[in-house]
C-alpha cells in the first residue's frame, strides 16, 4: 500500500511545498540567530503529529540544515536542543523518514552531540537517537562503529531518568548478536544498568529489564555474572522474581520471566531452582492464558518452550500446570468465527496473529512432548491435534510448517504414537510432500521425523517405502548440510534394519558404493556412524549366509558397474576377483576407521561390521589374510572399554565358529583359522576374558572357547 501511494504523494507534496513548508525551511537560513531559533520552534510546533508536514520538510532539505545548526559550535545551546527536538519529531513519522534521516548521517551527528555538557541537549539527542535506533530500518551496527560511543553512553546513564530510559532502550534494541552482547558487557553494562531495576520510574525499570533479557540470551558469560549481582543488597534473581508478581504489569512479568529463562538456559540457574519451578514456569504458563493479549500469548509460549526444552522435569511440571495442554488448543482458534462477525478490525488483528499463535503452540507442544511418553499421549489426545499438525505441515507460512514438523518430530519419538495416531492420520503423506521442496531447516526436521517413521515397528514404514523415498534420502546424503546428510543416511539405516533383500538391494543400488565409501570418509562423525550402521544393517547376519554374500555381491557389482561406465573397464571380471579386490576396499575402510581418531561408538560400530563380515564364509578369509585387522581385533579385545571388548570378541567368536552343517573345506577352513588364531595368541586372551567382571563379556569368551574344545 505504502509503495503504491508514494509516487502520487510526492507529486502533491511538491506542489504544496512552495505554499506552506518552504517558509519554515527558509527561516532556518535567516542571518539573525534569534529568528532562526524562532523558526525552529515554529517548525517544531508545525510538525508535531503531522506526518505530511514531516515528509514535506524532509523533501525540502530541512534535515541537513538542522544538522548543520545542531553541530555548529556558534549555535546557542537552546537552538541546538530545539534542532534535536525537531529531528526527533521527524523521526517519529514513517519508516521513510527514518531512512532519510539515516541517509543524512544523523546518527554520528547526534552521537557527537552527546559530548556536549548541556543535559537538555543531550536528552533531546538521545530521544531522537532512540527513535531512530528502535526502527527496524536502521542498521544496528551504526551504534558500534565508533568504539568510544558505548562507554560514553554508559557514563551518561547517571545523568537523569530520561537518559536512563533512552539509553537502555537503545541498548535493548541494538543488542542483536553475541558480539554486541560482549561489547556491552565489557563496558560494564551489568553494573551500570542493574541499579536502574529499582528506579522510581516504571519506564526506566522496564527498559533496564529488557536490556538484561537481550544481554542474557544464550550468553553464559553474562548470565553467570548476573546471578551474583546485588541490587540494593538483593540478588538480581530475586529482583526478577518480584517483577514477576501477579499484580505487576504483564509486560514486566513477561520480560522478567524471559531474563530468568535465559539465565537458566545459559546454565546460571539450575532447572530445579524454586525461582524457575515455582515462579518463572507458572508465570510463563499464565502468559499463555486466554486472558492475555495475542502477542503476549505468542511470546509466553515461545519462551516457555525454550525454558523447558532440555529438562524433562520442567516438561512434566508444565504439562500439569493450569491445564496448559488444553489451553494451547485455543491457539488454533484464530481468527474465531466471532471475530469475523463482530468487527473487521478485530478480524484483521486476529488474522495477523493467527500464524504466530499456531507456530508458538506447535513449538510449545514440541518442547512439552520431547521426552515424556505420558505427555505425548496427552498432546495427541487433545482435540483435533493430529489434524492440526497435518494441516500445519502444508501451511503457506514457513514458520508454521517448521514448528508443525518440529512438533511431529517430538511426538514421533513415541513408539506408541508411531503405531497408532501417526498411522491413523497418515502423517507420512504431508511429510513426504514437505520433503520434496522445503528450506533446509524444514528439511532437517522433516527428514529427522522420517527417520523415526521408518523404524522397524512403524506401520508407516511400508507405505513410505512404496512412495519411492529411497531416491530422496540418497539425495539428502549428498547435501552440503551435515545435519541433512546424517538424517538421510540415518533414515536409510533404519530402513535397512531387518529389511528384506529387495529393499537392501535397492538401497545399495540407489546410494551407490562410491557414495557409500565417500560417506565413510565424511568429516562429520555422526555421518560416519550412521553409514557404518547402515553397512552393518546391510550385512546383518539375520538372513543366512548366502544372502549376505549376494548382498556383498550386488554391492560390488554395482561398484564395478559404475567403474565400467566411468573408466570403460572390460566386463569379463570373475566374481571371485571382484570380491577379493573390493572386499579389500572395505577392509581398508575398516582399518582406516579403527586406526583413526574416532569415538568409541564409531569403533564399536566398525567392529560390529567386522563381526558381520566374519560371519560369512568367503569374507572370513578376507579377515584371516589381513594381519593388520587381526592385530586390531586383538588390541580391542584387551581394550579398557567393555563395549569394544565385546564387539572384538564377537568378531573372533565368528571367525572360529565351527559350522555344523558346513562342507568339508569349510571344516578345514575352520580348523585352519583356529590354529592361526591360537598362534596369534587369541586363545590366551579369551582365557583371560572368561575371568572378566562383565558377565556378557565373560559369557561370550566362554562360548568362543567352547568352539575350540568342540
Amino acid at each position, binding site marked *: 500500500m505504502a509503495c503504491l501511494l508514494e509516487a502520487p504523494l510526492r507529486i502533491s507534496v511538491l506542489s504544496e511545498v512552495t505554499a506552506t513548508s518552504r517558509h519554515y525551511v527558509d527561516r532556518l537560513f535567516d542571518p539573525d540567530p534569534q529568528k532562526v531559533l524562532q523558526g525552529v520552534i515554529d517548525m517544531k510546533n508545525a510538525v508535531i503529529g503531522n506526518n505530511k508536514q514531516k515528509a514535506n520538510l524532509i523533501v525540502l532539505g530541512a534535515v541537513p540544515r538542522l544538522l548543520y545548526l545542531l553541530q555548529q559550535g556558534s549555535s546557542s545551546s537552546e537552538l541546538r536542543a530545539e534542532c534535536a527536538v525537531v529531528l526527533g519529531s521527524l523521526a517519529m513519522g514513517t519508516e521513510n523518514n527514518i531512512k532519510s534521516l539515516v541517509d543524512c548521517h544523523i546518527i554520528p551527528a547526534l552521537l557527537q552531540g552527546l559530548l556536549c555538557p548541556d543535559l537538555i541537549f543531550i536528552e533531546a539527542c538521545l530521544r531522537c537517537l532512540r527513535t531512530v535506533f528502535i526502527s527496524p530500518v536502521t542498521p544496528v551496527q551504526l551504534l558500534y562503529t565508533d568504539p568510544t560511543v558505548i562507554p560514553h553512553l554508559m557514563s551518561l546513564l547517571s545523568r537523569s531518568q530520561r537518559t536512563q530510559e533512552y539509553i537502555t532502550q537503545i541498548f535493548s534494541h541494538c543488542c542483536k548478536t553475541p558480539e554486541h552482547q560482549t561489547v556491552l558487557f565489557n563496558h560494564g553494562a551489568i553494573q551500570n544498568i542493574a541499579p536502574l531495576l529499582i528506579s522510581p520510574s516504571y519506564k526506566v525499570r522496564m527498559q533496564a529489564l529488557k536490556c538484561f533479557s537481550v544481554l542474557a540470551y544464550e550468553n553464559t558469560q553474562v548470565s553467570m555474572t548476573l546471578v551474583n549481582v546485588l541490587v540494593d543488597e538483593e540478588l538480581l534473581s530475586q529482583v526478577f522474581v518480584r517483577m514477576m508478581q501477579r499484580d505487576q504489569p504483564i509486560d514486566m512479568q513477561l520480560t522478567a520471566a524471559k531474563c530468568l529463562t535465559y539465565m537458566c538456559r545459559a546454565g546460571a540457574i539450575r532447572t530445579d531452582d524454586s525461582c524457575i519451578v515455582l515462579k518463572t514456569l507458572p508465570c510463563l504458563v499464565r502468559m499463555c492464558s486466554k486472558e492475555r493479549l495475542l502477542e503476549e500469548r505468542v511470546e509466553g509460549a515461545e519462551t516457555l518452550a525454550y525454558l523447558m526444552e532440555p529438562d524433562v522435569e520442567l516438561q512434566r511440571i508444565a504439562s500439569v*500446570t493450569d491445564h496448559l495442554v488444553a489451553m494451547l488448543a485455543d491457539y488454533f482458534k484464530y481468527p474465531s468465527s466471532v471475530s469475523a462477525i463482530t468487527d473487521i478490525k478485530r478480524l484483521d488483528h486476529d488474522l495477523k496473529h493467527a500464524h504466530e499463535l499456531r507456530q508458538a503452540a506447535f513449538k510449545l507442544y514440541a518442547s512439552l512432548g520431547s521426552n515424556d511418553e505420558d505427555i505425548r499421549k496427552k498432546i495427541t489426545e487433545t482435540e483435533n491435534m493430529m489434524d492440526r499438525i497435518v494441516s500445519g505441515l502444508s501451511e503457506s507460512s514457513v514458520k508454521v510448517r517448521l514448528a508443525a514438523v518440529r512438533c511431529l518430530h517430538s511426538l514421533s519419538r513415541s513408539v506408541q504414537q508411531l503405531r497408532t495416531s501417526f498411522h491413523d492420520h497418515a502423517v507420512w503423506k504431508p511429510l513426504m510432500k514437505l520433503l520434496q521442496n522445503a528450506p533446509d531447516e524444514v528439511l532437517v526436521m522433516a527428514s529427522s521425523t522420517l527417520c523415526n517413521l521408518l523404524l522397524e515397528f512403524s506401520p508407516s514404514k511400508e507405505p513410505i517405502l512404496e512412495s519411492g523415498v529411497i531416491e530422496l534420502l540418497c539425495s539428502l546424503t549428498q547435501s552440503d548440510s551435515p545435519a541433512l546428510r546424517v538424517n538421510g543416511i540415518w533414515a536409510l539405516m533404519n530402513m535397512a534394519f531387518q529389511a528384506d533383500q529387495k529393499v537392501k538391494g535397492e538401497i545399495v543400488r540407489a546410494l551407490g558404493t562410491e557414495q557409500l565409501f565417500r560417506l565413510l570418509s565424511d568429516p562429520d562423525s555422526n555421518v560416519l556412524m550412521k553409514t557404518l550402521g547402515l553397512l552393518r544393517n546391510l550385512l546383518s547376519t539375520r538372513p543366512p549366509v548366502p544372502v549376505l554374500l549376494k548382498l556383498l555381491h550386488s554391492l560390488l557389482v554395482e561398484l564395478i558397474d559404475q567403474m565400467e561406465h566411468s573408466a570403460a573397464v572390460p566386463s569379463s571380471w570373475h566374481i571371485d576377483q571382484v570380491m577379493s579386490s573390493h572386499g579389500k576396499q572395505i577392509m581398508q575402510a575398516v582399518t582406516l576407521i579403527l586406526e583413526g581418531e574416532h569415538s568409541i561408538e564409531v569403533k564399536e560400530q566398525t567392529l560390529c561390521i567386522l563381526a558381520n563380515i566374519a560371519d560369512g564364509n568367503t569374507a572370513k578369509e578376507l579377515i584371516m589374510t589381513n594381519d593388520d585387522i587381526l592385530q586390531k581385533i586383538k588390541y580391542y579385545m584387551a581394550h579398557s572399554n567393555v563395549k569394544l571388548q565385546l564387539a572384538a570378541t564377537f568378531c573372533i567368536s565368528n571367525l572360529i565358529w565351527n559350522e555344523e552343517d558346513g562342507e568339508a573345506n569349510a571344516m578345514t577352513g575352520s580348523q585352519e583359522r583356529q590354529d592361526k588364531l591360537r598362534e596369534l595368541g587369541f586363545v590366551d586372551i579369551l582365557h583371560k576374558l572368561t575371568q572378566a567382571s562383565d558377565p556378557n563379556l565373560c559369557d561370550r569368551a566362554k562360548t568362543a572357547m567352547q568352539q575350540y574344545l568342540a
Partner: protein
Amino acid sequence: MDAMAELGAGSLLLGDPAFNYQEAELNERLKRLYPAVNEDETPLPRSWSPKDKYSYIGLSQNNLRVHYKGHGKNHKDAASVRATHPIPAACGIYYFEVKIVSKGLDFLSSLLPLSPIPGWDKHSYGYHGDDGHSFCSSGTGQPYGPTFTTGDVIGCCVNLINNTCFYTKNGISLGVAFTDLPPNLYPTVGLQTPGEIVDANFGQQPFVFDIEDYMSEWRAKIHGMIARFPIGERLGEWQAVLQNMVSTYLVHHGYCATATAFARATETLIQEDQTSIKNRQRIQKLVLAGRVGEAIEATQQLYPGLLEHNPNLLFMLKCRQFVEMVNGTDSEVRCFSIRSPKSQDSYPGSPSLSPRHGATNPNLHSAGADSPTCSNGVTPPNKNKSHNKYPGVSSASSSSSSSPSSVNYSESNSTDSTKSQPHSGTSNQEETSDSEMEIEAEHYTNGVAENPSARIMNGTYKHQEILQAQDISLEDSCASRQLCGGNQAATERMIQFGRELQGLNEQLCREYGKNVTHKKMLQDAFSLLAYSDPWNCPVGQQLDPMQRENICSALNSAILESQNLPKQPPLMLALGQATECVQLMARVRSGSCSFARVDNFLH
C-alpha cells in the same frame, strides 16, 4: 479474636508454650491472608472437626492430622472429616493445604457445603489421588490433574469472587477444577485405606503454593475494576463533587482558614458564614479540652435556645461536665485549684480537632448509617423545631470571640505567660519549677518514642495517654490526678453540681418519661466517686480525654443542624456508606469485598 479464645479454651494443650506460639503465628497469618473476615460472625477453619467426621477417621496433633482406621475393603468404607467451620465469603480467596504423610489406595480432598453428614456425595467436590480425576457431586470423575502420593502437598484454593476452585500439587497450580461453586463450603478430606495419614495446614505453616501472589493478582484486578468503574453522565460534575466534599469536610470540623483558602483556590463557595465556623471551632475546642462548663456557656450565648430544645444533648454535656470535674479539668472546679489551668486542657500543637480516621475509630463505621446522636443514645426530640428559630444569633456574638485564642478568657490568670511555651500542656501534674518541668517533659518524650503500641491517630491523644500512664509512677513526687484536682472547695462544688445533675435528670424524666440511657450515664458518672482512684477503676474509662470526642461531634452536629446545615460532612457519610456496603457484601457472600477494603483507599 474471640473465636480463637474459644478454640483455645477447648484445647487441652493450652498451657503448651510451643502450641501457643503456633496459635499466635496462625492468627497472624490468617489475619494477613483474610483481613476482611470478621471472625465474630464467621470464624475461619482452623482444624478438623472432631464432631463432623466418620467413625473410621481418627484425629490427632491438635486435630490437624487425619488417619484412617476402618477396614478399607471397598468404597463403602470410605470416610471423611470436615473442618470446624465453613469458608467465610469475606476471605475472597481461601486456601488450605494437605500433606500426604502416608498414602493408601485412594484419597480425596474435597469441599462440602453445609449438609448433614449422611449423603456426603451430594454437593461434594473432590480431587482423587489414585487416578488424578476430579469429582463434582457424583461418582464419576473427570480427568483433571496428575496422581499424587506420599510426600506430595496438595492444596485447594476456593475463589469466592468468581466461585471457582483449583488445586495445587507441590506448589504448582493445576488449573480450575470446578466452577459455579455453591456457598458455605467446608474444607474436607476423605480416606479409604488403612494406614492412610494426612496432615492439614490451615495457615499453621507457610504454604508451599504462593497464595499471596495469587491474591495480589485479584486485588489488582478488583482495584482496577473500581478505578475504571464508569462514572456515566455525571462525569463533568466529578471535580465539583470532589471539591464540595473537601470543602464541607473542612468547614464541618471548623478548619476555617484552610476552608477559606481551599474555596479561594477552587473558586467555590462556602455555605456557612466564617464567624459561625469559628464559633463552632471555639466550642469544640472547649469540649475537647474538657472545659465543658465553658462550652455549655458559650453555646448558650452564641446559640440561644439550642440546648433548651435539645435537653438530651444538654444532659449529655452536663454529665460530661461532671466527669470533667472529677477529672479536675472543668473550669468550675479548676478555679479552686492552685494548679496551672493549662494542665491537661490544651492539646499542644494545632489543629486540636483533627478527627480520627479509618479502622482505628470504632464509631466511624456506624457513622454513615446511623446518626451519631442516635448512637450516643440521645434522640433529639425536637430537632425539627430547633432550626431557624434564632436567626442572626451567631453574628451577634461573634465580635466577642472571633479569634480562637480568646478561648482562654475565663481561665484564671496565673500562668498566662507559660502558655506559649512548647512544653505547655504536656503535664498533668503540679508544676513546681521550670527546671523540673523540663526534666519531666524530656522523660515523657522518651516514653512516647518507646511506646510501640500507640494508636495511629492524632499525636496529641497519644501523648496524653502516655502522660497518664507515667503519672501513676510519679504519684509520690507530684501527687497528681486527685479528685477535682485535690481541692476541697472544688470537691464540694462538684458534689453540688452532681445534685443539680440528679435534679435535671428527674426533671427530664417528668417531662419526657424515663430514659434508660440517661440513667446509665448518670450512674456511670457518679460511680467514679466510689473509687479512691477513679482513673484506675472499672468505670475509669470515662475520664479518658478521647471520650470527649463523641459529645463534641454531637454538639457540633446539633449546632450545624440548628443552622440548617448538614450535621455530617458528606465525605464522612460517603466513607461510612462505603464501609457499610463492604460489610454488607461479606454478609451476602460477595467474595470481592475482601479486596475492596475502604482503608486501602485511605492513606
